[in-house]
């Protein structure tokens, strides 16, 4: 078990660094193993395994901690980690609920391009209001609610959608 963990950790780390630098056009990100904080009164807790620390440095910046990242940078960093996990062990089904809400136009584009690649191995069900994400879909479902407050679904084509914004 321990060996598989170490192997998987190393692979996810490499993939995370790759996806991060692709999303941010450079910079570095990585995972590291950290010993759990030892309270004074703790007996040595043999079986408590190390935790995982995340570090992320967008290109050119000197980020002291993850708190300093902007809303969009945090979302993009998290998606890079998710995609790294999926590339190492593709979950059959992946459901993403408005993960692109904080992203600007260019970053939605990068998100969608990578989604297209990963959907070779995993199926994606994505909730989004973003035009670019909708245009990248293989299939679209519309959910509506009538006066009776009951949800109903309808399979849609891109042409059905209002040419909004």
């Amino acid at each position, binding site marked *: 078990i321990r060996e598989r963990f170490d192997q998987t950790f190393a692979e996810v780390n490499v993939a995370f660094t790759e996806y991060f630098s692709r999303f941010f056009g450079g910079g570095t990100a990585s995972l590291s193993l*950290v010993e759990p904080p030892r309270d004074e009164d703790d007996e040595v807790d043999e079986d408590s395994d190390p*935790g995982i620390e995340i570090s992320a440095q967008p290109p050119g910046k000197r980020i002291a901690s993850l708190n300093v990242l902007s809303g969009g940078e*945090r979302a993009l*960093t998290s998606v890079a980690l998710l995609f790294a996990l999926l590339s190492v062990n593709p*979950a059959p089904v992946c459901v993403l609920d408005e*993960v692109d809400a904080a992203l600007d136009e260019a970053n939605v584009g990068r998100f969608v391009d990578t989604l297209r690649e990963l959907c070779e191995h995993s199926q994606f069900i994505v909730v989004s*209001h973003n035009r670019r994400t909708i245009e990248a879909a293989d299939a*679209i479902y519309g959910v509506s609610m009538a006066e009776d407050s009951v949800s109903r679904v309808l399979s849609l084509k891109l042409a059905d959608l209002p040419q909004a914004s």
Partner: protein
Amino acid sequence: MHLRRLDVQGFKAFAERQTFEFGTGITVVVGPNGSGKSNIHDAIRWALGEQAGRQIRARKTEDVIFSGSDQRRQLGTAEVTITLDNSERWMPIDYREVSVTRRAHRSGENEYLINGQRVRLADVHDLFRRAHVGQNSYAMMSQGLVDEVLAMRPQERRGLIEEAA
């Protein structure tokens, strides 16, 4: 393996039976605020065995059962069935398709079925663990929680790698 179909009835705002057929690529779900998009994410996680909590916005069993509206009476049962394509035998079951059903009643009782046969929750978890479709899996991102992985403690993140191992 992929999710071929999702049937919901009586689950949250899906008072009437609704069916989604999914392809293997990217399916995007669109619709106005409050129409029921996130409830689809909740339904899939719920069928996979998720107990009530923040991830599916339900504190107790009855919160997922259609509670009525001005024009419709409340229902007594919620039922969600996910049908998975198993032609490549991801799951250790000798069927081309595997369907998992979860049913909940206002009494608080929950029933689980695999291909129509009553099973225990532990059987559902076991089935998915062997197919790498985890219940708390990294592959399900709730709305507004995309950057949750950055806010987790290092020990909590360990679980993500363990799942991918």
